[in-house]
């Protein structure tokens, strides 16, 4: 794989980022896996954003979905199961000019990484997190996941899952994430719009994407695929156009309304559930601490500062 990849000549400096430039290793996913479409949408998002190539970071934990960074030609990394978010927080806080994207599965994000999700979200660390939810453990070959519905037969629940699954949208809203959206791997344009809006959000943004595992949970999301007889319902966002219909539309800044959307019966609606544009990011708050500390020490040099500290300990 690597040898052929090296054969392509480097793009001319300053050339716009295209899917061709952004393509790296050929995905190892099963043919028909929903994750291909997510990858395709992400290329399109990066084409639209045109960030400086070297400032994009694609990061992940472990799982089929978490192999994502190998398939995107940007700086990036493949970390350990469930812990990509705190690592990515270090990237974002350590390099405030970087654009950090994290990809992962339902097990990675809601099970082993559940606690990190809560805390990275509540701290509002600036990064975009895409969860590819297939309601099963794909990489480890069909065990029950925290989003597996009751009755779903897996290798760890041969007679069908018995534990109450989590409601991903309610969980995400509860974390304090400042941008929460839901999408579907069969709706590429919708995914592009959601990831794009998430990327432009100044804070912790998360998009949950239903992405079918054709190998271990075929047909999981048919009920939301029109050509398979399902219903595809979009969140009807407020347009603020003063019309009477607008009053009934969804206000993305209304947390209670967002929870109501999350409570809808399966398959529910897709779109932006919640967005809080006011809350400061941890990135900004930490930067303020630096500014305040530097003002107090009158921008003394590192050497002068430490010398003064040690002098007080004489």
């Amino acid at each position, binding site marked *: 794989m*690597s040898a052929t990849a090296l054969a392509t000549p*480097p793009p001319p400096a300053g050339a716009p980022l295209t899917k061709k430039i952004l393509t790296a290793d050929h995905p190892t996913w099963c043919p028909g896996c929903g994750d291909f479409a997510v990858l395709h949408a992400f290329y399109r998002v990066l084409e639209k954003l045109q960030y400086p190539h*070297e400032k994009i970071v694609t990061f992940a934990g472990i799982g089929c979905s978490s192999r994502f960074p190998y398939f995107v*030609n940007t*700086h990036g990394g493949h970390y350990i199961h469930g812990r990509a978010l705190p*690592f990515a927080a*270090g*990237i974002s806080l350590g390099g405030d000019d970087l654009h950090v994207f994290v990809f992962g599965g339902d097990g990675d994000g809601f099970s082993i990484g559940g606690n990190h999700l809560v805390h990275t979200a509540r701290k509002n660390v600036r990064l975009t997190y895409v969860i590819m939810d297939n309601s099963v453990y794909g990489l480890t070959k069909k065990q029950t996941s925290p989003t597996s519905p009751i009755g779903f037969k897996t290798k760890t629940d041969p007679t069908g899952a018995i534990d109450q699954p989590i409601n991903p949208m309610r969980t995400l809203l509860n974390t304090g994430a400042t941008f929460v959206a839901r999408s579907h791997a069969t709706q590429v344009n919708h995914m592009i719009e959601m990831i794009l809006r998430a990327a432009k959000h100044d804070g912790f943004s998360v998009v949950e994407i239903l992405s079918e595992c054709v190998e271990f949970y075929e047909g999981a999301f048919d009920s939301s695929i029109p050509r398979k007889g399902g219903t595809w319902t979009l969140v009807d966002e407020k347009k603020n156009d003063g019309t009477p219909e607008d009053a009934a539309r969804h206000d993305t800044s209304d947390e209670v309304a967002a929870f109501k959307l999350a409570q809808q019966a399966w398959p529910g609606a897709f779109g932006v559930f919640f967005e809080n544009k006011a809350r400061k990011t941890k990135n900004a708050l930490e930067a303020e601490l630096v500014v305040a500390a530097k003002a107090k020490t009158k921008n003394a040099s590192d050497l002068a500062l430490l010398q003064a*500290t*040690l002098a007080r300990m004489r």
Partner: protein
Amino acid sequence: MVSPNSPETPGGAASPAGPARSIQDVVIRLAGNSQDGIQSIGGFLARLAGRSDQDIMTYMTIPSTISGGPSIFQVRMGTGDILSAGDRADMLVAFYQHSYDAHISSLRPGGVLVYDSDHVKPAEGDNRFTHVPIPITTGTVEAVGGTSKDKGKNIFVLGLIARIFDLDVAKLAALIKERFGGKDESIVRNSMLAFDAGYAWPQNNLRDLFFRFEAVDRIAGSTGRPQVTMDGNQALAYGLIAAGVRHGAGYPITPWSSIMETLRAEFPKYGGLFVQCEDEIAAVSTALGFSYTGQLAVTGSAGPGLSLKMEALGWATMSEMPLLVINVQRGGPSTGMPTNVEQSDLMQAIYGSHGDTPRVVLAPKNVEDCFYIAFEAARIAREYSTPVLILTDMALASRIEAFDEPDLPTLMVDPKPDRSERGADFKPYPLDKITRHAPPGAKIATGKYPTVTGLEHDEMGHPTGSPKLHTQMTAKRREKIKALAASLPAPELAGDSAGEVLLVTWGSTWGPGREALNRIKSAGVTAAHLHLRHIHPLPNGLENIFTLFHRIVVIEINDEGLYGFGQLAMMLRARYANPAIVSVTKTDGLTFKVSEIVTGVDKHIVSATLKASLGAASHSALAKL
């Protein structure tokens, strides 16, 4: 009152010089409750020593109860090198009956018992000690008056000690003013009233106890710079800053917490940040994220938290990410003895992960070394692109020592990340070179951006299942640590260059080990002391040194384990296959007393075939110490 702790003067009385008797050093144990501020007496004495030419080492225990409860502080001060906290106290100051009951056994026969006669009734007819009853509580209340009750007892006692040991009152008064200066005026005034009352306590009531420390020239090797006084955790935190570390993440746990508290407050002043995470796994992950951006970061914990970091440390080895990990050891396993000392995390630090993970593990020997070890750890992490663990311990964390102020202008490291463009030959994992990661923000000339990964990979970071590559990459990760080992010179040997006994120590057992050497040699046994600062990989040439001694006695605060050897001893035996390597261990949660080491060494001399070759004379000489 010559201290029994002075290696050069193991017994006998000092000749009185005028009204004050001359002494070399003294061990004072203060026993009271934690809210009495006895720790701050130690702090004042430490700083005074730092501003004088006396050396100091303090020892303290923190009560395991959160507020209140018994607490002690032991301070050893004197002229010359002070290596350990002292086996037994020359003076005990008992604030309460329970303090007296619990600590009278730590006072050496002939020592001085100062007690608060408002609270303490010593055993009748006990004439082993010089009894000095002083109404510390009423004395303080009368001196300070008003609403402060007995607050200030500690400063009253400080005044007493200043009088008895002829300390520099002007310097102490200045320290008190500095310490309380920022606060309410009345606090400084009350403190000085308490101090003066203690200092002016009628001399005949002090039973004419009056000592003066021998004057010495400044210790050889002294830099002439002023001394600074701090505990080991502070020294480590400031050492990290000087070594150019500006980022970190952690989760609180005793005795690591004070490092992260310091860094959380200090890093922003230097343009950095320290993140308090939801747990230790998040902390090591966030720190690795910082390091990935090209800025060497620190995380830390105590034993239980280090266990949580292990999977991530495996990733750090595999992805070849530099990182500093501090582990302030305490008594384990589990919550164990959280406020006691132990050196039982050595194996965890070296081997505690999945897979083959060659690690770098360092340990500081005293408070001053906590500052400098940060440089060595940061140097190695950057040069070898690897995680480096620093094993310090509860004793170093809480001990205050005075040492020469570091020469910051020559030491300070500038921490800028290298975001320069990487050339066409850039490979994240070259087989023939040490990895140098390109941080995000750095352009890559080929247009092919690298993935840092925990999967086995080829030179470009692509995942591979190739048996050949796994063998080659495992060797790459091993060989760079071996290259580090090859660059480490053998540690200096103190004492005889060959002979009967070689003492081997690591971490905070350095001081008692060195002092034990002096005592063992003074008994006529040929002996040397070797201290390991680089524990993994081991420095060069130890095998040659080991062959020069009949017995290599490894001294460490951990259990002898299933096979009769402490953790370092076990590793040295495995590494050098030398049956002369034996172990002296203990598990009482306290630092080594010099006498415990001497006794332990003595046992090994008796039990071995060496007994014959050494002859009874040297053995019995040792036993007498």
